[in-house]
């Protein structure tokens, strides 16, 4: 029974993984990747590690892939030309990496045979929430904290990238309905050291401020 379930989920994982690579439509690839993650979660449950399984679904399938799908939907890649971009070094690199991976798997299969434990026969507490928690905060505290600093760095980096080259000064406010324009957007030579947005109620006012004939802004 257990072996049957293993074959089912492992097959599903491999099939979905192949589909991720083979699909032309990026959204289908993303959905296949979700399939891979969910099959992996099922395998974790069979290995008596429900906590890892739940976290796998919450973090990967529920958060990261949602963002990926989100980006694909926003960019609407499908409408762009999906011509094949062939990079010359791509195929050799893939072959080498695949060989390394297969060698790794073979190495593990050959050497680590004796560590096989039957998860259902001996209810070990490896995958139980309690032991994971105490392990993270005692024995593996340093790696745990270093990983969190790594994540913090990524967050700070994303913030910096997103805020770089912001056009509006920190005290600028966007008021719905009002026309707010930084001066240097209109006239780059006029950009002062302290950029300040100017709020105007109408196009005429803006034209007057910029020294343009206000009559030009009227629609005849």
């Amino acid at each position, binding site marked *: 029974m257990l072996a049957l379930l293993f074959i089912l989920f492992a097959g599903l994982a491999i099939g979905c993984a192949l589909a991720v690579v083979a699909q032309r439509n990026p959204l289908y690839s993303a959905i296949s990747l979700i399939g891979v993650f969910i099959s992996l979660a099922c395998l974790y449950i069979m290995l008596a590690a429900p906590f890892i399984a739940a976290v796998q679904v*919450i973090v990967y*399938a529920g958060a990261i892939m*949602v963002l990926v799908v*989100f980006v694909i*939907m926003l960019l609407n890649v499908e409408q762009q030309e999906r011509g094949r971009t062939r990079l010359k070094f791509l195929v050799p690199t893939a072959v080498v990496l695949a060989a390394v991976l297969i060698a790794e798997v073979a190495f593990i299969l050959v050497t680590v045979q004796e560590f096989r434990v039957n998860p259902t026969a001996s209810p070990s507490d490896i995958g139980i929430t309690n032991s994971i928690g105490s392990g993270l905060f005692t024995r593996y505290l340093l790696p745990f904290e270093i990983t969190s600093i790594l994540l913090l760095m990524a967050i700070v980096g994303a913030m910096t990238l997103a805020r770089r080259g912001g056009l509006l000064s920190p005290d600028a406010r966007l008021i719905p309905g009002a026309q707010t324009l930084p001066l240097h957007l209109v006239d780059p030579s006029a950009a002062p050291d302290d950029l300040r947005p100017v709020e105007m109620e109408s196009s005429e006012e803006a034209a007057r401020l910029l020294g343009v004939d206000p009559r030009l802004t009227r629609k005849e």
Partner: protein
Amino acid sequence: MDTAIDVVLKLVAITVAFVVVLLVVAYTVLAERRILGFIQGRLGPNRVGYGGMLQPFADLLKFILKEDIVPDKSTRFIYFLAPVIATMAALMTMIVYPFGPRTGIPFTSITIPLVIAHFDVGLLYVLGITSVGVYGIALAGWSSNNKYSLMGGLRSSAQMISYELALGLSLIGVIMLAGTLDLAQIVELQSNWRGFHWFIFLQPLGFLIYLIAAIAETNRVPFDLPEAETELVAGFHTEYSAMKFALFFLAEYINMFTVSMLATTLFLGGWNVPFAESIFGRGTFLFGLVSAIGFLLKVIFFLFIYIWLRGTLPRFRFDQLMSFGWKFLLPLALLNIFITATLVYFSYNF
């Protein structure tokens, strides 16, 4: 032999739970229409059956008989997949909620726990499955090839990701008090004080944050921006008709039901009915029955709050919604964790 009985009992439990859920969902729709009618000074549907009691079945018949329209330029496969994902994700969370204590069946010596599946990490399972439910809406919006649908889908994904954080963090207070992720144990822990040791008294702030975030998570008024009819026609399900629309409708109401069940389980003592244990005695059939009914009544109370809010509150603007979630609810949830952690630490150490 024992496994055979076990399987049969589980199947019976699944069937009963499924039927009860569908009935409650059907009558929630009716109750919503009647109560909204009352709030707005009109009658609501009251013609089919006594006081409109058969209205849900009439609606269902209509959904089945309507023509199923598939837009020409939609992405077929995903268009079909989306309502399935939405409904599946909504139904799958049903199985972990304990709706009653261990109960003896009359005239036999069998006792069964009134829960379908018992998980060590039941709470995480619920959160995981709910987070997968976003795909149903996001993919529906994308595959319809309609700008209103896409906007609805995008809004919904953004909203659900944002409020999931506050929702998850608001539960951490309860987890710290209980010291477990097992829903059955969390309910057991609330059975002290003659069945009145509810976590809402210890976690009032966490409860409020959960309630608000849960309403946003299920896309209900005042957070129903994904289907704001004044701007987006019907949002992500604009292009859906007949039974596919009905599936989205069903998923929304089942989601309401499940978040109400989670609120009941974590904050309102689950199946604990005050004084029931001292009257009927633990493990008897009557105690199980009273507890299950008490659980259902608490859930229905939450459903009523949902309807009440829909009848009385206007809709947020989208930027207000986002800044409310990120700048108010999330820090408040963190504050709640901080306070709870401090109190738990001192109560253990001094």
